[in-house]
């Protein structure tokens, strides 16, 4: 680790030496700061609005005049917000874990061996992207009904036990994994399970962590499938809760923004935790 720490600042020096004037760097930083502001402003606005009193909601002033927690109190009492957050967290965490597991297995299968029908099956995986969710929803609903799983969290998880994105990303990462490492492990007599879990997976943890973040978020933000399954607010997820503040008779912006802020915090936390894995993996590859 100390090596890396020493190594990291060495690069900019080399960089600056090469571009004597270094004018590109300030330009790059300028653009990055602009993009960062652009990225963060709406979330600032979300939090700001969530703190505004009701008669100020449609105000477009950038600074808060008076802050209140009324919207949070209302959001928490109008819908079973905490219960929904827990439900969503459970569903997202389980889906993420399962998708990564099936993705790692499939990724290994596809990248490790050439077998009859491999490209056909690979194509079938990629093509799942192109099937509009809405057309499979009703048949899936009927299946869930037959399994007696309507109004359960299990029904939110079951159809998501694999994802094309996870598989494709992991296949690609595993293909660029140096084959000498496989070979050496085979020579040492390691079996495939050992190679996969003790050599491949630890080396791909940066990719896996990024993937986990993305899968978690997309499950967290899912709306249409939970909408069809919802029979009670208690067994529902937070996106359904957010939509409860949006009606044809007008949107309750204050509570919506308060609920959205609450719904965004767990994702931010997950990102920060998993981002460490990405960084750690980079440090490791820097050492190699």
């Amino acid at each position: 680790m100390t090596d890396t720490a020493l190594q990291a600042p060495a690069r900019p020096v080399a960089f600056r030496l090469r571009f004597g004037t270094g004018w590109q760097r300030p330009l790059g930083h300028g653009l990055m700061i602009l993009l960062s502001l652009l990225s963060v402003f709406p979330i600032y606005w979300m939090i700001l609005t969530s703190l505004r009193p009701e008669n100020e909601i449609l105000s477009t002033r950038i600074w808060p005049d008076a802050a209140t927690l009324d919207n949070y109190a209302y959001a928490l009492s109008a819908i079973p917000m905490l219960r929904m957050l827990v439900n969503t967290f459970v569903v997202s965490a389980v889906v993420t874990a399962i998708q990564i597991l099936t993705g790692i297995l499939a990724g290994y299968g596809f990248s490790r061996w050439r077998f009859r029908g491999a490209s056909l099956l690979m194509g079938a995986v990629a093509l799942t992207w192109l099937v509009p969710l809405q057309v499979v929803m009703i048949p899936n609903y009927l299946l869930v009904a037959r399994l007696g799983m309507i109004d359960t969290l299990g029904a939110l998880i079951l159809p998501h036990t694999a994802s094309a994105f996870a598989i494709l990303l992991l296949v690609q990462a595993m293909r660029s994994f140096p084959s000498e490492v496989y070979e050496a492990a085979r020579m040492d007599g390691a079996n495939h399970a050992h190679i996969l879990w003790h050599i491949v997976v630890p080396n791909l943890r940066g990719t896996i962590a990024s993937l986990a973040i993305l899968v978690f978020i997309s499950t967290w933000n899912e709306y249409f499938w939970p909408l069809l399954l919802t029979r009670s607010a208690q067994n529902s997820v937070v996106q359904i809760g957010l939509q409860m503040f949006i009606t044809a008779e007008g949107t309750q912006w204050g509570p919506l923004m308060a609920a959205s802020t609450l719904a965004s915090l767990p994702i931010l936390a997950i990102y920060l935790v998993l981002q460490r894995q990405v960084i750690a993996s980079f440090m490791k590859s820097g050492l190699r």
Partner: protein
Amino acid sequence: MKPIVVSAALAGLTLGAAQAQTMPAEITEPVTITWYNYNLASAGNGADATRHLIDLFEAAHPNIHVEGVPVPPQNITTRVQADLVAGQQVDLVQVTFNALGFAAEALGAHALEDIVPAAELAANFEGMVQNGLDLGRIDGRTYALAYTFSTPVLYYNADIFRQVGLDPENPPQTWAQIAEAGRVIRDHSDHIPLASGMFGPSAGDWLMQGVLRSNNGGVINADRTAMTFADPASLEAVQMLRDLAQEGILVNLDVTSQLESMAAGNAAMYLQTSAVQGYLIRGAEGNYDLRATTMPGFGDLRPRPNNSGSGLAIFSQDPARQRAAWELMKFVTSNEGYTIITRDIGYLPLRMAVVESPEYLAGWVSEHPLLQPNLQQLSYLEPWTPMPGPNYVQIATTMMDAIEMAVFGDNDDVAGILTAAQTQTQGLLP
């Protein structure tokens, strides 16, 4: 199809059909019914009032348990359809009026005349506004009782009116007066002269039906066999809207932008359902003077608004559950029920006693002047005609796309656009 589901559902259906006439006089055994309800799918007054209604009902009928199923309005038909196919128990449903035809013809909503003893039905209809009852009827049979419904009103910002020299005490009553006022507002302020909820997928065709009908036109003929929105009277009304748009008076905004522009005080006039009243009042409070008047007409013709919103329909197959659903329906459309709906959610009552009797809301109504145009229109309200057949959604969407193009598009050939769309939608009729 999954064979098991099919045969089970089929068995249930035939059984139900055979016993349709034998609704018991009262509920003696505990029974649970489902109520597909869209007010429950939102947070706030609507959901609270609905839960309150259910609690009151359950207290009065200890043998009946009501399971509220929350579904947003735009999904309710889809959801009922899916649940019927999946063999879930569907009893009472809050049906949006555009889907009433589909609910009756395809999904098997019962005509009340078929399941409720005639004398009981007549007794319950006592005191209901006659043309309010018509809202839920198709070919003379009552498939739904109007439940949460509202009428189109013209909201206006009296402060803007005063600012540009218009008289807020005499708001426009005809489209010609709207055009006149609109020109003044356009020329003397930066505000949007006229926003409207006529266009956009979430509006469907409900407001347009009333506008065309007010010029003695219409979107479809009386027996729902021919589209008529390109006929001369309808065409004239659309041409009038185009003129307003061309003059920069009528502005094309999506549904949320309109609502927020009016709520924030940026629009001078807004033609929209009275259901948004609560939202506008909250926006106007402390900011500007919000007023409302009836929907505008054409010249001397009396305006012919139609309702938006929902009615309640019964889908139960089992006689005991039919009785339970009917009891719930009776309760929520009683004087007590409408009192809660009108006061706490902001819809209209189907029983005039609710607004006339001091026992209910007479006092409350006098404190809420914005409700007046709404109540006034109740006496000449006409039904929102649902498009027939399985393509009812596609017909309305294609028609409204064409009318939007005719009003706001670059092409001046209004007749050509409407005629082409009329021919096309005609082909989608059953």
